[in-house]
């Protein structure tokens, strides 16, 4: 498969995953604030949504204060911010367009529709009139595209590159949301059991689409169990362990080496990451410090992303000078 095509499929899926995550994050925030009248007056109620991105500096310089409208604009319609929904939709569509002959025509059509609904006229009016529906629709459009891909694309190399992108992005997003939200809610840990607290924990789970699955496993809301669930659950498709395991599997499928043969840098990076997740216990994580643990995972994920780029997308003849084709991490 052409490197450029693999690159486009990989990024198209990362962008789609990113779009869905952002939509879900905003949707769960809107829901949570409905349950917390006191918090609605808090001028910093929407700040965590910017903290998650780590782009606070860009936000204060270009957007302003952490008001609801401003945070929503930043995440949804800011064309200058490369991680906003609209920027990701445009990028996903451009990538899809450049591999039109590879993906199924139904997939292209749905990605095109998503683009028209977010970038078309009247989108921002729709978002402010009925934000719940707006973000819900985006989320469902992303699910639809994934479902169509699953059942119309051949599950060959193109599919494995799609999986690789999707699961790496998802692992990254789960770790970021957990990292930021945990420390915001944490100071209130003495009030365990108070309604304020559990509303926030519930919102955290919802923002990772995991409340119902969590309930099935643990019933009671507790911070430690939530962290355990989101990092280590072997079956929940958004836990960090699950995502990295699937990314690793996609990698072995692409490479064609037997599973478990760690004979190059990328394989070893995956192996180390899986080792860390397979052989750690939640108590150890809490002892090291959750933030430090997640920080390491995130930096490992970045290394994996770079190695993928070098191995698959940027193979150069010796004579060629360095020229970067990397997309926005």
């Amino acid at each position, binding site marked *: *498969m*052409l*490197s*450029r095509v*693999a690159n486009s499929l990989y990024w198209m899926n990362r962008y789609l995953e990113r779009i869905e995550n952002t939509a879900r994050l905003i949707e769960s925030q809107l829901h949570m604030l409905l349950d917390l009248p006191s918090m609605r007056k808090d001028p910093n109620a929407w700040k965590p949504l910017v903290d998650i991105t780590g782009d606070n500096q860009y936000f204060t310089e270009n957007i302003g204060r952490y008001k609801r409208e401003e945070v929503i604009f930043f995440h949804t319609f800011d064309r200058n911010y490369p991680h906003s929904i609209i920027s990701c939709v*445009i990028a996903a*569509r*451009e990538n899809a*367009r*450049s591999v*039109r*002959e590879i993906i199924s*025509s139904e997939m*292209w*059509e749905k990605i*095109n529709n998503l683009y028209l609904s977010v970038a078309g006229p009247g989108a921002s009016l729709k978002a402010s009139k009925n934000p719940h529906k707006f973000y819900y629709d985006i989320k469902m459009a992303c699910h639809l595209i994934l479902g169509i891909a699953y059942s119309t694309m051949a599950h060959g*190399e193109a599919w494995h*590159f799609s999986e690789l992108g999707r699961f790496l992005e998802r692992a990254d997003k789960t770790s970021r949301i957990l990292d930021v939200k945990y420390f915001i809610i944490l100071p209130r840990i003495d009030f365990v059991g108070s309604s304020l607290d559990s509303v926030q924990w519930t919102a955290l789970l919802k923002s990772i689409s995991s409340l119902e699955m969590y309930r099935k496993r643990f019933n009671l809301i507790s911070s430690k169990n939530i962290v355990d669930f989101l990092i280590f659950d072997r079956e929940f498709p958004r836990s960090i362990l699950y995502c990295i395991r699937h990314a690793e599997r996609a990698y072995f499928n*692409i490479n064609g080496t037997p599973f478990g043969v760690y004979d190059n840098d990328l394989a070893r990076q995956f192996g180390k990451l899986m080792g860390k997740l397979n052989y750690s216990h939640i108590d150890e994580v809490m002892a090291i410090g959750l933030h430090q643990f997640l920080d390491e995972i995130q930096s490992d994920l970045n290394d994996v992303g770079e190695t993928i780029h070098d191995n*698959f*997308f940027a*193979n*150069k*003849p010796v*004579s*060629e000078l360095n020229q970067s*084709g990397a997309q926005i991490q």
Partner: protein
Amino acid sequence: MHFDTYNPEHFYDEYFLESGRPRPEVEKLINKINSFAKSELANQRRAANAAFKQMGITFGVYGDNKGLEKIFPFDIVPRIINARDWNLIERGVKQRVHALNQFIQDVYNDQRILKDGILPKEFILSSVAYRKECVGLTPPKNIWCHVSGIDLVRDHDGQFYVLEDNLRCPSGVSYVLGNRRVMKQTLPAVFEALPIRPVEDYAGRLAETLRNLIPESILKPNIGILTPGIYNSAYFEHSFLAQQMGEELVEGQDLVVMDGFVYMRTTQGFERVHAIYRRIDDEYLDPTVFNPDSLLGVPGIMGSYREGKVALANAPGAGIADDKAIYSFVPKIIKYYTGEDAILQNVPTYVCEDEKQRQHVIDNIEKFVVKTAHGSGGYGMLIGPFSTRKEQKAMIDNILREPRNYIGQPVIQLSRVPVMVMDHFEGRHVDLRPYVLYGEDIYVLPGGLTRVALKKNSLVVNSSQGGGSKDTWVLAEDVT
């Protein structure tokens, strides 16, 4: 909806000899359409448009916002060419492409036609499409123009004329295939009534044409379709052809030249490419040889081509034969190389390089169509009768500044075919672009692209200028 009120007016109408008297080849079709319930055709048209949208058959418009694509307007009333006319077109087009190919080979090698004084040497070699980099080159099997599109028009007497030759990267064939697919879906009953020649196997024939350039000893060759990328106006067609042929769609950045061979970058390393159907112009093909600023091309590919390590279709330099000023010499070119008279006539053409002809164009500019020698897509063209004094004056200034780059042709009253307008039919002007593949033999796709000027009285059929298209039906046999 029916044809009772249709008025062919004073034009050559391809459906009607005169009001109420259909031509024999369309009679069956007209009866069929007349028999439809009132809203049926309008419903079918809606269905056809929806099908186009779904299939995403679009083109990009230069100058519009990045990434904006439009659907090529489609008219549901087909254009019909009877077997006798098609036979003439097919023979004429084959003869023409055969002669043009010999002309290109000659110009870059022995230059016999110039030495024999048949064509003016300086004039020919001053064409901007003349590539000195190709001098002395003979491409695989002596074929230069593997894919060409010959634009034809019919005048008020119904005779076919060649309007221009497209030997660089003629586009539009994907619409021919798309139109046919949609028509078969929406009007199957009409298809059954007539012996219509199929167009389905174009992609397969194109693949064979390219395979013909690769030595047989290479068992599993790689063929690439080189596209400028997603913002090109014909990107849809490039990806469509790649998909239909099952070959790789590549951009310049995917290809690299090493040790004289062309490779594509794949996830498993570099893989050799043996033939490239390139859909980018010569100027952008190789920044080390042509335009150094080109980011679309592949550095070193011309060297590889020269050494015979990669085949390119169409061959660089082939554009010399679609210079619109050289076009005026094509009848002489045909006579010289084949000894035959041209089967298809040229539209009378005045070359502005020549002082007398130039003066005639300038004096009669309001009656002429003026075109640049290298333009395409209807850009930079003047249609005398539909232009303002100011536009005419600007064009005259252009001609005087750069006479070699302009030609004038008298306005042709293009033939008309009915189109659906609201709830009735009206005549609109059309042209025809048959596609020609030069492989082991010369093959002409039956029919080709019929472009139609959807604006009333307009003579401009280009998609970028408000034109649309029709399905073109060539009949396998004539009604007797």
